[in-house]
């Protein structure tokens, strides 16, 4: 019962947050100096041309009317028309979003799947060789920028050895007919995997390192808890203690860190897409800023904010799932 109510309340709480994001984005976009119409029309356009364009994009209305219109349109999924591409912003985003989500999800999966076992093993073999190695690796990982890792990997694996592709990401769901060198679905999947490997590792390393560190220290912490000692005193095997009695409790701060890493993952995704020439949201936002394509800037920002808020909700829900005290509103 607690969990359902908790979920509903967390989702409802997200609404004002999103509205806030929309408002700030709108205000900021309109506060930036520079006139998009001028950029579109080039130097010295005629007054009628300018008027026509302004009317077409609704730019001649007062600010608050445009704000209300914008929010109203947003509710129907309409993010306006891209000035540069001259297609609906929503369409452009839907085109680009999958690549970014794929990149972020795969790097997260990579980070979580490697970091959690690494952290646990590190804690279990505290101060042994495995622990030292994993601690050094994670220290390097948290202190190295993801784009640098990306560039180095391109140099090593793509440029010098030609082992892995570094550009032209193949989406796993792409039609085999449209991909050169692919005949079956399996070919496409393999190619997608090869293409994803470098960007995934370069974006995921930071998360992996951060999660490993917290996992290790939390496990060490939990292993000194009274309930762990009690389990030992009742003859529970050390493996079970690690896997069951200590593990779940140690995940709470880990989940928090995973959630917090989302913002750096979004930032990292932008850089990674640039480095690996992936046509995703990151490059879209960079390009639209360069072109002062306001509707597109606003649209991409809002979508990123939305992804972030969804991530935070998922974090909170997993927290509540792991710790029963949260959904009962009695967390200590």
């Amino acid at each position, binding site marked *: 019962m607690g969990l359902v109510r908790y979920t509903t309340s967390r989702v409802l709480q997200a609404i004002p947050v999103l509205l806030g994001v929309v408002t700030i984005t709108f205000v900021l976009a309109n506060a930036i100096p520079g006139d998009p119409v001028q950029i579109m029309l080039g130097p010295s356009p005629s007054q009628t041309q300018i008027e026509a364009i302004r009317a077409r994009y609704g730019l001649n209305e007062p600010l608050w009317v445009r704000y209300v219109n914008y929010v109203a349109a947003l509710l129907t999924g309409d993010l306006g028309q891209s000035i540069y591409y001259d297609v609906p912003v929503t369409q452009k985003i839907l085109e680009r979003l999958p690549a970014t989500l794929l990149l972020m999800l795969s790097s997260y999966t990579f980070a979580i799947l490697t970091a959690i076992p690494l952290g646990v093993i590190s804690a279990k073999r505290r101060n042994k060789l495995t622990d030292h190695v994993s601690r050094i690796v994670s220290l390097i990982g948290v202190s190295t920028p993801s784009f640098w890792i990306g560039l180095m990997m391109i140099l090593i694996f793509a440029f010098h050895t030609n082992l892995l592709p570094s550009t032209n990401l193949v989406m796993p769901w792409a039609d085999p007919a449209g991909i050169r060198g692919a005949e079956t679905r399996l070919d496409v999947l393999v190619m997608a995997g090869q293409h994803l490997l470098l960007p995934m590792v370069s974006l995921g390393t930071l998360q992996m390192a951060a999660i490993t560190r917290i996992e290790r220290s939390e496990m060490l912490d939990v292993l000194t*808890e*009274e*309930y762990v*000692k*009690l*389990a*030992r*005193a*009742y*003859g*529970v*095997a050390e493996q079970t203690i690690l896997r069951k*009695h200590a593990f*779940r*409790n140690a995940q709470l701060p880990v989940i928090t860190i995973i959630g917090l890493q989302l913002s750096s993952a979004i930032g990292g995704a932008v850089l990674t897409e640039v480095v690996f020439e992936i046509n995703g949201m990151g490059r879209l936002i960079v390009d639209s800023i360069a072109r002062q394509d306001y509707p597109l800037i606003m649209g991409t920002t809002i979508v990123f904010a939305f992804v972030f808020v969804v991530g935070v909700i998922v974090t909170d829900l997993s927290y509540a799932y*792991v*710790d*029963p*005290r949260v959904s*009962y509103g*009695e967390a*200590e």
Partner: protein
Amino acid sequence: MTDPLLSVENLQTYFFTEDGVVQAVDGISFDVMPGELVGLVGESGAGKSVASTSILRLVEDPGRIVGGRVEFKGETLFEIETDDEGTPVENEDATPVETDESLSQQEMRRRIRGREIAIIFQDPMESLNPVYTVGGQLREFIEINRDLGKSAAKTAAIDMLREVGIPEAPARYSDYPHQFSGGMRQRVLIAMALACEPSLIIADEPTTALDVTVEGQILDLVADLQEKYGTAFVWVTHDMGVVAEICDRVNVMYLGEMVEQADVDDLFYDTKHPYTEALLESIPRPDRTVEELNPIAGVMPEAIDPPRGCRFHTRCPDAREACTRIDPDCRVVEDGYSPHRAACIKYDAFGNVGYDASPPLDNETRSGVDVTLTGDGGHQGGDDDE
């Protein structure tokens, strides 16, 4: 006479810290008869908790059992090898060597922990895992230690929850620890211990964290269940009042050593050791006002650098010069209901070691201890775990 259920001989557990070796338990011996409730008493830091974790061989780093032997139901749980003079034998790494009869950690886990000897910890708030249901935790321990299947273990768990006085036991089974009060959690922990059907339960200050009313209820409950199941208990406490209420025999520890062992009546009415006397003086009693309480003078010295001679001489009102030279063992000083042992050289059992002839110690000659008035010692001297 029946054989003891548990027999601890000359147990030594040291902690090898950066500041030096802490002699947390330094050569204690005691027995527990089947079905008996034995008290293990002393101030915080006396080594009671270390002694109880040593019996289960669950001493954590940097602690190590460095000497002695523990026997349970005639089987050696562990024994540290000694040479002809009785000094523990060490291997190249300066680790004490266990004899071949000693059980391995694996055997301890499979056959002894929980199954034969269960433990109840001091803090009911910390002893239950917050992310699992109370029933699930109980069931897990029952499954492991009684070889029952899931559903049989669940039934046993619910029965036991009912037995320890938890209302609506079947519903509470699926509740989480945070939904229980401190007293109720302690009942759960008692249920855990009893449900594994061990022959011995070590209760490590299980009522310290509870208020007096709840403490009283828990003590009554334990007394009832003890009678019903015939389980032996080692009751670790610093509270002489609790001892008087439930124990059959009492062992008093001071600074890692045993100072007095006696039947509970002998201990209260024919106290031998000056330390026990001081402990008894410090219990609040209805017939005395707070002003008349007589707390033990001085702070318990650190077990890292215990006083020479009798370890209590820095605080003992009867201390004489000879006490700084002679470290008395705990020997029979009177017969009593059971042999009454005390470690104090003022008794004849120690022969003429010069106690009577030597001059009393005045405060200045006691080795550098602040003499202040203190209560039960719970506020200084660190934890038992140290």
